[in-house]
């Protein structure tokens, strides 16, 4: 499963980034952690997008993952990074599996808005519940790794990057299996897929659950790298919009794209925030429009063109 070019690039690039992180200044390590954490959720959205489905509510799973980490930390005192990550991803995956029974019956705008509705229910519950931190959220302690509390954030960075590499490889592999290839065909002609002997509902359900697991894991890692959760930054519909934004920015071309797009977004936002504190949203929005007009295939299309012209 590691023979194709994409897998090689993911592996080698990932290892280089892990080495780079050891010497990079703190703020760059932070940006990489935020970028890669979020990229996991984008990876799931990419699979859905290839299938023609855009979810405007994946902050539900992202927030579920993040809040699972918070509850594990505050209520149960769980500090281990892997327990927290698995907790967040599994709970989100379970929720995604259950919600998937409804979602697999809807397409287009109905799919997008139903997801938003569900995410806003969770948002409403958390905002109104004082014991869940209300709008203030919770601070989360730095995770321990195999029982050791790290001095710096580098070990957490290594964990996040490793999870990112493994997820990218798995999704890359999945997209090459028969069921994984059922993305564009479903988007283009569901009836024909059914006639070929595949259940569209099952295929979508599987992809939806996968994307929920990835978004939950993303939220869990994000919560740990930031050390803070709150509903506005984790579950609100603006977060769902952000995820869709980055998906479009990245482009659906390759599993590496979400990682590049996510990093570009993180850097773009940081500099927009720094250079134009009153107008940073305008810069981010302007970039979005530019991408849609001039690079409908996202940043990845630029990279693949470059690659083709050099080879």
């Amino acid at each position, binding site marked *: 499963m590691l023979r194709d070019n994409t897998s090689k690039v993911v592996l080698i690039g990932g290892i280089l980034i892990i080495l780079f992180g050891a010497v990079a200044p703190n703020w760059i390590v932070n940006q990489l952690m935020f970028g890669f954490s979020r990229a996991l959720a984008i990876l799931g959205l990419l699979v859905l997008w290839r299938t023609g489905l855009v979810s405007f509510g994946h902050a539900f799973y992202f927030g579920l993952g993040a809040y699972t980490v918070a509850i594990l930390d505050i209520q149960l005192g769980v500090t281990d990074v892997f327990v927290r990550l698995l907790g967040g991803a599994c709970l989100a995956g379970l929720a995604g599996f259950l919600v998937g029974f409804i979602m697999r019956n809807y397409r287009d705008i109905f799919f997008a808005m139903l997801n938003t509705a569900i995410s806003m229910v969770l948002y409403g519950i958390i905002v109104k519940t004082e014991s869940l931190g209300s709008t*203030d959220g919770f601070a989360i302690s730095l995770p321990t790794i195999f029982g050791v509390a790290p001095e710096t954030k580098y070990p957490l960075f290594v964990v996040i990057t490793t999870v990112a590499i493994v997820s990218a490889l798995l999704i890359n592999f999945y997209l090459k299996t028969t069921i994984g290839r059922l993305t564009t065909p479903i988007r283009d002609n569901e009836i024909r897929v059914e006639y070929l002997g595949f259940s569209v509902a099952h295929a979508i359900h599987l992809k939806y659950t996968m994307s929920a697991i990835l978004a939950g894991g993303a939220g869990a890692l994000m919560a740990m790298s930031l050390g*803070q959760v709150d509903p506005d930054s984790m579950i609100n519909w603006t977060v769902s919009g952000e995820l869709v934004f980055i998906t479009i920015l990245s482009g659906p071309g390759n599993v590496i794209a979400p990682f590049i797009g996510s990093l570009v977004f993180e850097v773009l936002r940081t500099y927009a925030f720094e250079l134009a504190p009153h107008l940073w949203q305008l810069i981010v929005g302007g970039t979005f429009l530019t991408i849609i007009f001039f690079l409908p295939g996202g940043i990845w299309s630029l990279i693949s063109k470059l690659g083709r012209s050099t080879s």
Partner: protein
Amino acid sequence: MNRRFLTRALGIAAVSSVALTGGFAQAKDSITIAVPSFLTGGAAGPFGIPAMNGAKMVTDAINNGKLPAPYNAKGFGGASASLIELDEGGGATKQVAEYRNLVEKRNVDAIVGYISSGNCQALAPIAEELKQFTIFATCGTPRIFEEAPRKYVFRTMGHATSDNVAAAMYVKEKFPNVKGYTGINQNYAWGQDSWRDFDLTMKQIMPNTVASDKTQFPKIFAGQYGSEISAMSLDKADLVHSSFWGGDLEAFIFQGAARGLFKKKLGVVTVGGTAAYRLGKKLPDGLVLGARGPYGILVKDRDSVLNQWFVNTYKDIYGIYPSGPAYQYGQAILAAKIAYDKAGSDASDEQLADALRGVTFESFSTTVEMKLGGGHQAATENGYGITKYDSEAGENVVTDVKFYPASCVLPPDGVDSVEWINGGMKGAKC
């Protein structure tokens, strides 16, 4: 097309790398202070922009040595400060990421600001982790210094408990015939804390009043309060407490006034100061109005040299009178100057913190004693007044202004606010 895009992208990359390296250049005679405040969204107009204006005005005056005595020495310990403006919007988690950028990427010397309690609460532990000298300007939750001792974090205004204790005392003094009270507060920590403090204080000092069992907790930034106003109009309570702020407060006042709510009930707005100048004639007469301390409209006529300088300079530059947030940010910048003057412009974060811990200083409108939270949390007086539209001057004024000293409305150092109120406010000197 794509080549052009590429060259453009490269151009942007070049510009950003210049900006990046520029961030590291530092001369000894200058310092950078980051000032976060709401620059976008609904809280920008009533809170964020006046706050930023106040910070800019005071910093300019300090850089040029134009503040009245005793602060007429030029600069922050002699160094001239440049401000980095920063948007506070987007939620606490985003602010945590941006705070790390400020410290680790942009290497600012001091961070002075923050309006939202949620942000302050999230950032206090981060500031401690990064050992960054930080002064919170406006945020209100008492929990910041009650939860854990802080070493690098300060707050130069009184916390929310004093707002609500003072409100209850003012009601007792001026409206002793109140029989019952209800409230409309945003359903998040600030609103819940505010209501709890007010309710507990009323139970202590006016035990014969009845708390309504239908208090309203709409969502923050809801904007529409029709059903809540109807419910409160039917309530027997004759007093309505609200800790609404910014755009929510203005919306509530408009909608409540249109339905005659403030004619039937006594309105007590603890963060009303910002609305006083913005709403003009649309602000109903007879509201009990607070400004989270001795700021804004409540102290406009105090004739100390510092206060008159603040009011007049602000009016000259921005065309309106300074509201509370302008004062609060100006006060926090002033505290930064005091720390730098004492510790020197090249002082470490630790030395700056040592310099500010426990000091007492004359601010623009009041005396600030850094005596709570182990010398990190300010204690100031707090007061209320009653709104009245002055048709001759064409502006709102407040009458019957009454201030309560800090020792009357804030718990002693080391005592939890809620416990203090429930214990009958022991040690309060009024």
